[in-house]
C-alpha cells in the first residue's frame, strides 16, 4: 500500500497527514485525526451521516478518498461552533427538537449549513431537496426542516 503525505485545512486549522491511497476522507477524519463527530452509517454514499464540507460543498466523506483532499478546506460538525458559541443551525435544531438519537445529526447540520451558505433564505422545498440524502430514522424530519427555516431567520 502506498502512503502519501497530504496537506489540508480542517475546521480552520492547517494539518499534514499520512494517508494510504485507499483511505477515505471519512476514515482519515475519524481514525487519523480523532474527529469522530462525523459518522459512518453505510459506507456507500447512501445515508448522509458522514457529510462534511469540502471547499464549501457538502460531500459524503465515505465516498471521497483522503488523497483527493490535498489542499482542500474541510469543515466537520466539530467546526460549526465558534469558540464555544453554537452556530445558528445548531441552536435551531436544539430549539426545534430536531435531535433524537443524534447519529444523523452531524451530517444533517453540515448539509444544512452548506445550504444556508449558498442560499440564506431557502424555501421548504429547497430544504427538503438539500437534505434528501440525509436519512433520519427517529424524527420524521418535520422538526429538522423547521430548524433550517429557523436558522435562516437567525442569520
Amino acid at each position, binding site marked *: 500500500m502506498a502512503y502519501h503525505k497530504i496537506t489540508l485545512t480542517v475546521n480552520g486549522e492547517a494539518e499534514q497527514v499520512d494517508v494510504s491511497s485507499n483511505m477515505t476522507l471519512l476514515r482519515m477524519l*475519524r481514525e487519523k485525526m480523532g474527529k469522530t463527530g462525523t459518522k459512518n*452509517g453505510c459506507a456507500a454514499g447512501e445515508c448522509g451521516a458522514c457529510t462534511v464540507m469540502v471547499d464549501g460543498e457538502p460531500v459524503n466523506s465515505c465516498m471521497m478518498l483522503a488523497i483527493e483532499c490535498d489542499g482542500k478546506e474541510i469543515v466537520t460538525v466539530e467546526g460549526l461552533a465558534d469558540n464555544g458559541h453554537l452556530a445558528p443551525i445548531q441552536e435551531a435544531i436544539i430549539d426545534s427538537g430536531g435531535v433524537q438519537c443524534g447519529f444523523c445529526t452531524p451530517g444533517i447540520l453540515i448539509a444544512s449549513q452548506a445550504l444556508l451558505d449558498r442560499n440564506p433564505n431557502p424555501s421548504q422545498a429547497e430544504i427538503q431537496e438539500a437534505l*434528501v440524502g440525509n436519512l433520519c430514522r427517529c424524527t420524521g424530519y*418535520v422538526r429538522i426542516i423547521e430548524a433550517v427555516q429557523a436558522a435562516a431567520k437567525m442569520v
Partner: protein
Amino acid sequence: MTTEIKERIPSPIGESKPRLENDQKVTGAAIFADDIQFGNSLLYARIMHSPHPHALIKSIDTSKAEALPGVKAVVTGADFPGYLGLYLQDRHIFCRDRVRYVGDPVLGVAATSEEIAVKALDLIDVEYEVLEPVLNAEEGAKPDAPLIHPDLGNYKVANFIFPQPGTNISNHFKLRKGDVDGAWEKCSTIVERKFWVPHIQHVPIEPHTAIAQWDETGEITLWASSQSPFAQRNLLAQALGVSQSSVRVIAPKIGGGFGCKAGISMEALVVAIASKTNGRPVKLLLTREEEFHTAFVRQELIAYYKMGCDENGKILAMENTYYWGGGASTEYGVNVTRAAGYSCTGPYEVPNVKADSLCVYTNHPVGGAYRGFGMPEMHTGLEQCVDELAYKAGIDPVDIRSINCVKEGCETVTGFKMHPTGLSQCIEETAKAIQWGQKSPASAPNKRRGKGTAIMWKAPAMPPNAGSSAWVELAEDGTVNVGLGGQDLGQGAFTVMAQMAAAALGVPYESVRISSPVDTRYSPYEWQTVASRLTWSMGNAVVAAATDARRQVLDLVSEAWDEDPEDLDIRDGIVVSYKSEQEQPIKDIVVYGLPKPDDQGWLGGPIIGRGKFMPSYVTGLDAETGQGTRSVVHYTTGSQSVEVEVDLDTGCVEVLRGVSAFDVGRAINPALVEAQIEGGFVQGMSSALFEEMIMVDGFMQNPSFVDYRIATTTDAPSDLQSIIVEVPQDDGPWGARGIGEHPMVPTVAAIANAIYDAVGIRMMSPPFSAEKVYLAMLEAGIVE
C-alpha cells in the same frame, strides 16, 4: 414558606425541558460505540455468514486462514456449545451443525486490520449439505414441513411460551372466549379477509457495533450499541457458562434502536472471538449490507380475520389466526406471538373470540423486537376489517370505533377489567382535527383524495416481573446524580428521568445529572430498554430513589432542628420549615451532615437514595383459553387519522396530513411526547408506502438504502398534528405511561383506509407502492 410561595416554584413535570445531551449531539462530542478509542492493540473481526437458507455444515477448514500473517483468532461453533435466547434458548453463538438463514453466523476471525480479516475469510472452506428451506410461516406450520429445529423439545423455555416439538411451531397462543360459532348467526354483517405483512427492518442509522475484551483473569467487557446491557450480561453469561458478574457491558450513546439492539445478536459473536485473542480488544462493526442480511428483522405476518357485528354496529365476534414468520430462531418472536394473542381483538370489547397466534420457524433472518412488537402488523389487517365492517353495515367508520372501543371497566379479551383510558377521546379528537366527513378537493384532475382512521392499543410485552432500579446521590454543590440502567435511545428517557428526580426530590431540574454511559458494573439493574416501559417502570424506580434521598435529608434536618419532618420540605434545593421558617440549602447538608449543638459532634453523612420498581400483579394466563385475572400491566391507546391523495396515472400515494392522539397518562415532557408521535408516524408511513425486505428463496434482494427505501425529507408530510390525551395510569409516575412504540401502530391501517376512501380499493399487503396501487386500481376497473 407559605402555600403561595410553594406554588411559585414551577414543577418540571409537564415542562418541555430540552434534552440533556443536546449540546454533545450537535457538536460531535457525543460518544457512540464506534467512537471509543482502543489504541493500536485493537483487532478487527469479520464474520462468515451462511450462503444457504437451510443446510447442514459438513466440514470447515480454517487452516489456511490461521496461517495468514495478522490473523489472531478463528472461532467456529465447535468452540461454543452454549445456547442463546431470551424466552426460548434455540440458537448457539455460532452455528454448530446447521445453518438456518442466509446470513447465519458460521465463524468469525479477528485480525490486525479489516483487510486481513476479510482476506482470511476468503481462505476458509466450508462444505454444506443443502436442505429444503421453509419460506412461509403458514406452510411452515404444516405437519409435513421440513423441520428447522429437530431439537425443539430439548430447548429451555419460559413457562408462558408453548413450543410444539416435532413441528416448526415455537409458540402457540390460544384464546377462547364466549361462543364464537354461535355468535355468527346473530351478526347482520360479517367480514372475512386475509392479509400479508412482509418482513421489514429497523434501519437505525448507526449500524450494530460492539467491541469485546477478555482480560487474563477471565473478566469480559463488552462495549456495545445496546438497548439491553443487563439482558446481554445475563444471556452472555448463560451461553458462555460464566457468572453474570464476570461480564461487564458498557453501553454508550446509541444511534437508533427501535428494538433491533435489544436482546442479543452480533454482540455474542465478538465476545466469543475475543476469548481467543489473549486480552486484545476486538471490534465488530456491521456493514450496512450485513445489517440488512443478518440483523434482527420484524416478523412477517400472515393473518386471517373474521369479524361480525349486529345492525347497531356492535361487534359480536372475532375469529383471528395469526401465522408469524419468526425466522430461523426466536429471540423475541415467541413473545411477539403471545402479545398478539392476548391483544388479538385490537382495542375493542368483543364478547366472543377465538384466536390462534402461532410463531413459526422459517429459513428467514431472525425476528427481533421491532417498535410496536407485533401490534403494527396485527392492526394493519384488523383495522382495515373494522373499516370494511362499518361500510358494509352502513355505519360511519369513526362511529363503529367509538361504539366498540375499550372503555374503563369493560372486560378485555383476556378477562382483564380495562383500566381508565382516553381512547374514546382520542377517536373524537383525531376525527375533529382531520375534519372527518368533509371531502376536500384534489390538487389535480387525475388525483383523488381520501381520509382514513385507525385506532390501536398496546401493552408493554415483557415478563411479568421485569424490574427497574435506581439510585440518587447528592454532591457537595447540591448536584443530584441519578444512577439508572435504562438507555436513552433518542426518545429522551434521561431527560424525563431528570425531570422526575428533580420533582420528587425538590431540586431544580438543572441540577440533575444522569450517570451515563450505563455500565453494568456501576449502574443499577434495569431489565431492558424495550416495551415503552422506561417512563413508567424506570420512572417509578427513580421517583422511589429520589423520595428515599429526600426522606433521608428531611430526617436529618428534623433531628438537627428538632422539628416534625411533616413541617419540613425541600423546595428548589433548599430545606425549609413551614413552622419555624428556617431555611438551609441541601448542598450544605448532603455530604458532611449537620453539626450537633454546642460542637458536640455531627449528624448525618453522605446521602444516597435507592429505589426499585417491579410490577407484582400480572398473572399467568390459561394455556387453552388465554384467560386470566390480569394479562398485562396496562394498555396505551390512541387513534390516527390521515388524509391522502392518490395519483390515478401513477398509483403514487401521498400522505398530506396526519393527526395522532394518544393517551399517555401524563406527558412528563410534552415536546418529547410529540417528537415520539411524529417520528413514529413517519416510520409507520414509511412502512406503509416503501418498506419490504424482498425475499426470494430465502435471499434478501434489496440489502441497501437504494433498494430498501425509507422515508426521506421529501416524503415527510408537512402537516403533522399530535394531540396529547391524559387519563392517568394508577401506578405510573404522575400518571404517566409509555408512548415510544405506539405512534407507528395504527399508521399503515389508517393510510390503507384512506386509500380505500380515495379510490375504493382494499390493499391487503403493505407496502402500498405506486406499482401495487396502480395495478389494484387497474384490476378494479378504476383506471384503464
